């Protein structure tokens, strides 16, 4: 009698696949529904932004930073601005810092809305995704009024921001926040606390705190594993120390600390905190200029520095080497998604194919941030 033989099935997921956010590719070794391993293959959106920085100069690079992470471009703007300011020792006016914080936190709301919506889409519920898009549209309106673009803002400049808030914008923003808070509750009752959603997300791919640190996970993914670390609190930058907000941590109330549900809930809770920061910032707005005097031909002294910004995808590191000329010698962005992709291969062992989708969505990876 011939013996039955089984063999591994190698699946190719992507680069065009509905649940790989952007263009990622996974080579999946599967045994039926259960995966042996999923090997990520990135680079399909490598746009050589770091090389371009060496060609276009400091001011000219600002629009490119938008494209490093198009979902929350304000933070990449801010990171680049802060890195240049640190190199050249420029002080940003206080109103400029407030404008930065307000724009960035609105962008964080928009980014997290997209993340939680995409999570819904990936596990098969289109409605939460479209509701999240509906809310995003209104944030886009506000940001468009602020800086003229919906997605790639180019709002910040080295030494501050390009424009002050338009007249009447503050009231509109506060009104939107009043509108958003119940919407988050609605979103929770539609999707987050849905029995099927909890069953799908809880206990999937937990990451221990040691692993999270060792693999250099950052931001919400790290905090979901219970590590209390937020750049805004721990290495304070901008005017964040003036605001009263909490850093939500993964509690594992639905399963294990650091599972997909914790990572997902982290985004929801951060939206609430962002809304809190925004209310305070909008109310306490000081008067004054928004942009420091920076020469057009910006030449920081030779040197190098690293800046860390708490973006929506976590701690974003900007490493800039200047040689004293008008062009940076080397720019490197260390992004949250890049690190998060590194851990997928380890976590994927023993998961089901449907869980891989959840894992990718819960780590909130964005293709341009990985590839740059």
């Amino acid at each position, binding site marked *: 009698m011939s013996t039955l033989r089984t063999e591994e099935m190698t699946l190719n997921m992507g680069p065009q696949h509905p649940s790989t956010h952007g263009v990622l590719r996974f080579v999946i070794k599967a045994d039926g529904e259960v995966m042996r391993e999923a090997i990520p293959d*990135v*680079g399909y959106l*490598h746009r*050589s932004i*770091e*090389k371009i920085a060496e060609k276009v100069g400091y001011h000219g690079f600002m629009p490119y930073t938008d494209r490093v992470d198009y979902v929350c471009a304000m933070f990449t703007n801010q990171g680049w601005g802060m890195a240049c300011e*640190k*190199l050249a020792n420029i002080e940003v006016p206080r109103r400029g810092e407030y404008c930065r914080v307000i724009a960035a936190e609105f962008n964080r709301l928009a980014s997290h809305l997209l993340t939680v919506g995409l999570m819904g889409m990936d596990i098969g519920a289109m409605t939460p995704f479209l509701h999240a898009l509906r809310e995003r549209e209104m944030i886009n309106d506000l940001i468009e009024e602020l800086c003229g673009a919906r997605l790639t803002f180019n709002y910040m400049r080295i030494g501050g921001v390009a424009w002050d808030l338009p007249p009447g914008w503050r009231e509109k923003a506060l009104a939107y926040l009043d509108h958003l808070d119940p919407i988050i509750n609605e979103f929770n009752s539609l999707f987050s606390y849905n029995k099927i959603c909890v069953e799908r997300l809880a206990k999937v791919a937990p990451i221990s705190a040691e*692993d999270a*640190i*060792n*693999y*250099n996970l950052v931001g919400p993914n790290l905090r979901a594993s219970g*590590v209390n*670390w937020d750049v805004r609190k*721990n*290495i304070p930058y901008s005017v964040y120390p003036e605001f009263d907000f909490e850093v939500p941590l993964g509690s594992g109330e639905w399963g294990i600390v650091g599972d997909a549900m914790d990572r997902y809930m982290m985004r929801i809770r951060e939206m609430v905190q962002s809304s809190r920061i925004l209310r305070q910032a909008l109310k306490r707005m000081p008067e004054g200029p928004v942009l420091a005097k920076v020469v057009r031909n910006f030449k920081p002294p030779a*040197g*190098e*520095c*690293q800046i*860390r910004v708490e973006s929506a995808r976590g*701690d974003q*590191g900007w*490493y800039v*080497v200047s040689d004293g000329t008008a062009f940076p*010698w*080397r720019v*490197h962005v*260390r992004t949250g998604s*890049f*690190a998060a*992709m*590194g*851990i997928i291969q*380890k976590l994927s062992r023993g998961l089901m194919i449907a869980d891989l989708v959840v894992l990718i969505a819960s780590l909130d990876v964005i293709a341009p941030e990985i*590839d740059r």
Partner: protein
Amino acid sequence: MEALKIYERVKERFPDKVLEVSEKKPDPFAAVAADAIVAVGRLLHDDPETAMDCLSNQTGVDYKDRIEVVYHLFSYKHHHTCVLKVKLPRENPTVATVEEIWRAANWMEREIFDLLGVNFDGHSDMRRILMPEDWPGYPLRKDFVEPLEYHGISTVRESPILRLDQKKKHEHA
């Protein structure tokens, strides 16, 4: 702990391996001999005083005469940071991998290999990560010349404003 104190600790332990400590603002760094980076990393990682449990950033810089690999270390326990550098020759740069100490190094080293051509000894999976496997050269090196076509797709475009194609062709000539 201040970054400079950390470098002193390292220097106490490996006096001949720390080549240079730069106190330049804003970020001071220490240059370490290429053969000692794993030992230094292990020391900083295991020492409870420093406890550098996270490799927050690893990247390479091409300085035309040398290639530097930069390690940004960070400790979640003590909330302090330090910068190590390894200077390598431009011809066939090779350094030992720190993947065993910090798993995060796996991907970052692949990226450095891909874009700058630094070889990491003992790396478990040394493949190109961002560029296609058949890409010629290392793009982030300063002397990298872009190929004129890739699999039959021309990489130049007639641009009325920039005349980039001309510039590129000029570079090739």
